[in-house]
């Protein structure tokens, strides 16, 4: 018999289950309920789901609007593009950093890991605002470039595609570094030596042994960037320009400018479904990898 007993086991499983139920599933159901309502003036600003005599007053109008208006589709696709590109860059920069930390001597390793997590001690909002100060036309970077004579007039670094990507990659880089670092330190050094011993040059060792064996870390890091980046609101709002159309911003606008809660709820539901599917697929992939 196990030490915790039946009740203990029930509590152990029950607590996270209850948490999931209360703080994820239930709110999601409420959002879904709102997405089936019509916008109305009042408190709350939408119609009830059940009319008189318990007749169902649901409407698919909000979803129809999302399907019909290409603006939403473009916003979804743009978000996906921004997030996918940010994920790719974060992996490209994050892997070598994680590799360097994993190969560093013991004392340095702790220090470097501390540096990776250091930005979290400052508010996310302040760090994104700081980029405005750096990137704006008479900002730190442009002044530096002009002073050094590299450019004659300020470069358009802010409120465009570049600044949003930069903000995304900067903000989410630690989330890539940590899981990749985790899988790199778990990698058996003997396997790397065995590959070299069998005649593989360093590049071959990396692509045939190190990278394949750290793919779970890479996949975990990619998901940790991709998912929040798709729904990101703060970065496109602060660093993006008028042409930056990310779904998080569209959602914000529906809620706070148009006060159309049902439409916003529908956008959110589509976003969750659009995220849930890739997550499930990725998890399948990771499990298959782990089972080998």
């Amino acid at each position, binding site marked *: 018999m196990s030490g915790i007993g039946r009740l203990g086991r029930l509590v152990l499983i029950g607590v996270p289950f209850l948490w999931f139920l209360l703080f994820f599933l239930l709110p999601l159901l409420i959002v879904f309920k709102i997405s089936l309502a019509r916008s109305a003036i009042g408190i709350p600003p939408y119609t009830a789901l059940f009319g008189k005599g318990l007749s169902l007053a649901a409407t698919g109008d909000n979803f129809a609007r999302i399907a019909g208006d290409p603006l939403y589709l473009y916003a979804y696709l743009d978000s996906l593009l921004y997030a996918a590109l940010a994920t790719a860059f974060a992996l490209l920069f994050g892997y070598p950093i994680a590799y360097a930390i994993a190969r560093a001597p013991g004392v340095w390793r702790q220090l470097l890991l501390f540096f990776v997590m250091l930005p979290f001690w400052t508010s996310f909002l302040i760090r994104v605002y700081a980029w405005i100060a750096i990137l704006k036309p008479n900002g730190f970077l442009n002044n530096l470039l002009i002073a050094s004579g590299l450019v004659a007039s300020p470069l358009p670094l802010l409120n465009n595609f570049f600044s949003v990507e930069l903000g995304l990659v900067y903000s989410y880089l630690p989330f890539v570094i940590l899981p990749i670092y985790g899988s790199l330190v778990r990698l*058996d050094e*003997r*396997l790397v*030596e*065995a*590959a*070299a*011993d*069998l*005649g*593989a*040059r360093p590049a*071959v060792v990396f692509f*045939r*042994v190190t990278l*394949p*064996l750290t793919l779970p870390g890479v996949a975990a890091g990619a998901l940790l960037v991709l998912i929040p980046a798709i729904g990101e609101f703060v970065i496109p709002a602060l660093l993006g320009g008028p042409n930056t159309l990310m779904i998080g911003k569209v959602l914000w606008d529906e809620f706070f400018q148009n006060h159309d809660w049902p439409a916003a709820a529908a956008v959110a539901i589509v976003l969750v479904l659009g995220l849930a599917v890739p997550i499930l697929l990725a998890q399948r992939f990771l499990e298959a990898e782990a089972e*080998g």
Partner: protein
Amino acid sequence: MALLEVVGARKRFGAVSAVEDVAFAVERGEFFALLGPSGCGKTTLLRLVAGFETPDAGKILIDGADVTALPPYARPVNMMFQSYALFPHIDVAANIAFGLRQERMDRRRRAERVAEMLALVQMADFAHRRAHELSGGQQQRVALARALAKMPKLLLLDEPLAALDRKLRAQTRLELKQIQERVGITFLVVTHDQEEALGLASRVAVMDRGHLIQVGGSAEIYERPNSRFVADFVGEVNLFEGVRRGSLLHLRGIERPIPLPRDAPDGAAILAVRPEKLLLYQEEQGGFAIAATVVSSDYLGGSTLVHLAGEGGLVLKARLPSASAEGVARGGRVWASWPPDDAVALDR
């Protein structure tokens, strides 16, 4: 010309000296063992030959060519790791083919070689399994096949049998020897197990604290150890240290001096006697003998190991054929002796 020559190799890790001025040569086709207790530097020496470590001083020559500065991938040696280090993300056949791919061997010849290697280690039915689906013994065979696949000039084996259980170890030892004879590749094996070293290798080098103490054939190492360390580390031994007077060794608390063997070097005042050389008598003999009491007798099947408490506080071990040990009872009084020339006199 020797296949492997290690010349004055030295390696230190910080203040710790792992290998100190080690020099030895391994001949072509030999099965050579580096034997020593853990931490004696034998694995570091092996890693120097493989190229995973660079020596602080000295040279390593393989087939006459200086490889000291070459990285592991450029050396004509392959290694079988103690942990086997099989790639977990590819199957058995791909593991064995890994080294061949690096040589750009064409597909057909590669497949042939893999099949050949699988047959050699009797693993043909497991070509498409992953390492974690194999038993320890099977993993060991795959590791051997992978290391042999490239037909290296020299195969390095780091504690090849350490991870196997006792019975499998004896069987695998025999197979390893047979495979070595069949492929004709020079084997350099590292082990802490003296039984393994003596059983496998044609020549053995005994190491202690970074230094090479003795190099010789298995029988030579066992029968003619050159030092107290080798005598004690390889097999069981009775060691006596005393004051030498001419051809006699005087031990404290023992009346009669012990005669030294005729070939005893000058100044040698340590005597090593293997337990199986000891003769036990029920009655006092004329000539040299040590009076002793039987402390215990361990029946080991074919032989029996008798522990004795001798006069002057001496502790003795005697190995007798079980048939002749029947009369030896606990608490019994015996006289232990041996033909003087069956002992080895040591000066260090």
